[in-house]
């Protein structure tokens, strides 16, 4: 049971890749990429977890309190917002592809000409 979170992270990574490989729609591909990316969040937070640990904020708790690892949390928190804007950039690309080629199916985008 304790390895469950690791398995969830691995599952999210692989299912996101499967979505990317089989995608028939660029919006679906972008979402699949976001799923793959979120697997890293689960993995990082799992590594930082500690039984009985609370949030690593020492507002009114003594420094000896058991807390979870703050380093991985800092890694995740910056990436959540940055990942959202990168997803927006990719969706903007999908809109442009639709305007230029009239399709968002990657398989129908054969040539590189604009």
């Amino acid at each position, binding site marked *: 049971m304790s390895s469950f979170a690791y398995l969830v992270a691995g599952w999210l990574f692989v299912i996101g890749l499967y979505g990317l490989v*089989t995608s028939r729609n660029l919006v679906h591909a972008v979402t699949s990429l976001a799923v793959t990316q979120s697997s890293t969040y689960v993995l990082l937070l799992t590594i930082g977890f500690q*039984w009985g640990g609370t949030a690593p904020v020492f*507002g009114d708790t003594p420094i000896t309190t058991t807390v979870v690892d*703050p380093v991985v949390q800092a890694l995740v928190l*910056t990436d959540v917002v940055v990942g959202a*804007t990168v997803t927006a950039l990719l969706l*903007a690309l999908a809109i442009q592809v639709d305007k230029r080629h009239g399709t968002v199916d990657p398989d129908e985008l054969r040539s590189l000409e604009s």
Partner: protein
Amino acid sequence: MIRRARLLLFAASGAGLVTLIVTAYLGLPAFGRISHPYGARAISAAVVDKGTANVVASVTFDQRGFDTLGEEFILFTSVLGALLLLRPSAEETKRARNAPQGRVLDSTRLVAHLLLPLTLLIGVYVVAHGNVTPGGGFQGGVILATALHLLYLGGDYATLRRFTPRAVFDVVESVGAAGYLVLGLAGLIAGGAFLDNVLPRGTFGQLTSAGTVPLLNVAVGMEVFAGIVLLLARFFEQDLELRGGDR
């Protein structure tokens, strides 16, 4: 045929990847273990040396501040890229303004307008208290941007446009990005290292504690807030205002 071959290739390489992931997992430390060497050092550095109650904020903006500068500029450039990609082209014409829109329930309108000031307040609170309680510029910026879009949910698009002038948000976005850089340079000049935390530590757990951390939070909060508002404005414009093009 190609799809089938691709799927077979994925099945083979996916099986290999799963094997590698599971092998790597077997070498990882046990789940929920007691010992976190990096975490312990980060906590000691944040609370004892730097006087920051929120250790995550200390790691993000003080101990690993340079790394966050990189993240901040990924955010800046991806917003910039999306804005450039979504510029209306010459062939696209503006749809008539005040076109009929979907009906909004009175209750939705009421709740949205009640929540708007409350959400703005929470956003400012989360940005300002990033050094002492969970939160900070990244989270608060998103809450602030959400607050403004309650105008769209509970009212109409024209109101949202009136309250989000592009020129103003362009400036806020740039000032946020530049502010982080300027604070870094201030550390270089006053302390000898880029992003060095040169300001006084203040009283532990107070709003003004932790030196430059709250200021960096404000810079990031401005950038995230303006970035998301600008992005959503462009997507709204594509969907609601433009017609025509190559289609």
